[in-house]
């Protein structure tokens, strides 16, 4: 379970302190998914960095599985916007990197074959460098790297936004398949309402900077590709929050 209470994050700039997040509360149950949408610069990525234990410029409480965030103790899968593959490593070495950090004693990760098969990563792809991959293939590699670790939490920053529509849907399915198999607690940051409705059991809308929670929605369209009137209405409601018209939209 991820619990965030009264979180405020700030940046020190030349002119003083600038707030990125303000009085933020969040709770993602164990094995659940939470999608966070908000305008650019609202502190979504900052929130992910805090949850990943990378940033420490915050006040308030953040806990994962009832303990403070410690990357050395926890297994945190973090998929940044550009997939975070190291350009000088082959796909195979990239995928094994997170395993290498957490299990320095064993060379070949457990369950590697299953995950690679599930993601459709073949032998030929494993020998390539990231530069030689398409966006979808890079995404597959970064998903493999994250899921191989069987992480306690999975954090994804705009994971599918750079992909074309067809690849995006395909990758979302792939993600679901892996997520169902491992039931990993997941936070996804996105600026697509459709993506939030599809991937988040809970959808949270953040305001523009400094980000604070505008609405929390228990999403009934989770993992459903819908085109009903009800779906359109839900989408419009969330858009309303995003564009500042609030719940009246």
């Amino acid at each position, binding site marked *: 379970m991820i619990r965030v209470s009264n979180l405020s994050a700030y940046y020190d700039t030349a002119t003083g302190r600038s707030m990125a997040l303000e009085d933020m509360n969040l709770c993602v149950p164990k094995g659940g998914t939470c999608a966070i949408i908000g305008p650019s610069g609202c502190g979504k990525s900052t929130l992910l*960095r805090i949850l*990943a*234990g*990378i940033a420490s410029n915050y006040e308030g409480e953040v806990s994962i599985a009832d303990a403070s965030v*410690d*990357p*050395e*103790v*926890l*297994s*945190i*899968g*973090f*998929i*940044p*916007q*550009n997939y*975070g593959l*190291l*350009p*000088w*490593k082959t796909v195979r070495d990239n995928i094994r*990197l*997170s395993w*290498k*950090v*957490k299990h320095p004693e064993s060379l070949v990760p457990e369950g590697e074959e299953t995950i690679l098969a599930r993601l459709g990563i073949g032998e030929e792809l494993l020998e390539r*460098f*990231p*530069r030689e991959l398409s966006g979808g293939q890079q995404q597959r590699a970064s998903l493999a*790297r994250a899921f191989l*670790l069987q992480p306690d939490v999975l*954090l994804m920053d705009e994971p599918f936004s750079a992909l074309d529509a067809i690849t995006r849907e395909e990758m979302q399915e792939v993600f679901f398949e892996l997520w169902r198999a491992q039931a990993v607690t997941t936070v996804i940051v996105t600026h697509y309402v459709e993506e939030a409705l599809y991937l988040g059991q809970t959808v949270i809308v953040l305001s523009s900077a400094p980000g604070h929670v505008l609405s929390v929605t228990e999403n009934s369209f989770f993992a459903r590709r819908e085109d009903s009137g009800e779906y359109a209405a839900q989408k419009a409601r969330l858009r309303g929050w995003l564009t500042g018209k609030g719940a009246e939209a």
Partner: protein
Amino acid sequence: MKKRILASCLGAAFLFLAWLALSEIVRLPIIPSPVRVVENIGEIFFGTIAVHGAYSLGRIIAGLLLAVGVGLPVGVLMGWSRRADRLLAPLVYLTYPVPKIALLPIVMLLFGLGDGSKTIMLFLILVFQVVIAVRDSIRAIPEEVFYPLASLGAPFRLILLEVLLPASLPKFMTAIRVAMATAISVLFFTETFGTQYGMGYFIMDAWLRVNYLEMYSGIVVLSVMGLFMFGVMDFAERYFCRWQGKM
């Protein structure tokens, strides 16, 4: 790769022919025929030139190892830590533009006339290039590259091995290549005194003995040594930096 070798062979053939033509035209002892020079190399290479070549190569390798051994850690430190950079950058920038050959008298006073001062001179030429290349490459790594490792709590040792060193390798190799040309010419100069071994000594000694054939043999061997070193560096760069794509 095959194309490049072919192109090098063509270049060598052209040079050889031009030299041959020139020697036929002027017919002076200061420009002997390349055929005779090659014959001479065949006669004296293993007995004489190889020893001098080995001395020069040994000094270059020693200087290179010393420069990498010092330059790499300093470059990593300056690239990784802002504070270390603030402290060391003025020192580097103050000493970097000084022509290293101007320091030769001081180096000789401190380290003597022998191999020590020759190695130190090579070290001085190479080390600044290494420091600056490594520091700049590490600074240029986008912050996001570190996130996946940082979120796993990776120790610095792993970040160094998996990110910092591979990221700085291409610029590091280029820096060595650029500095190596200067390093060889300075080595030549320093080998003209305080030693009886090395290509510099061999060539200048042949010149003083008015043995132009040997002098030219030395120059040809020195060129081939340079060609060989650049070839090795090219090959290493192609292999280790192949992730960058075609070069």
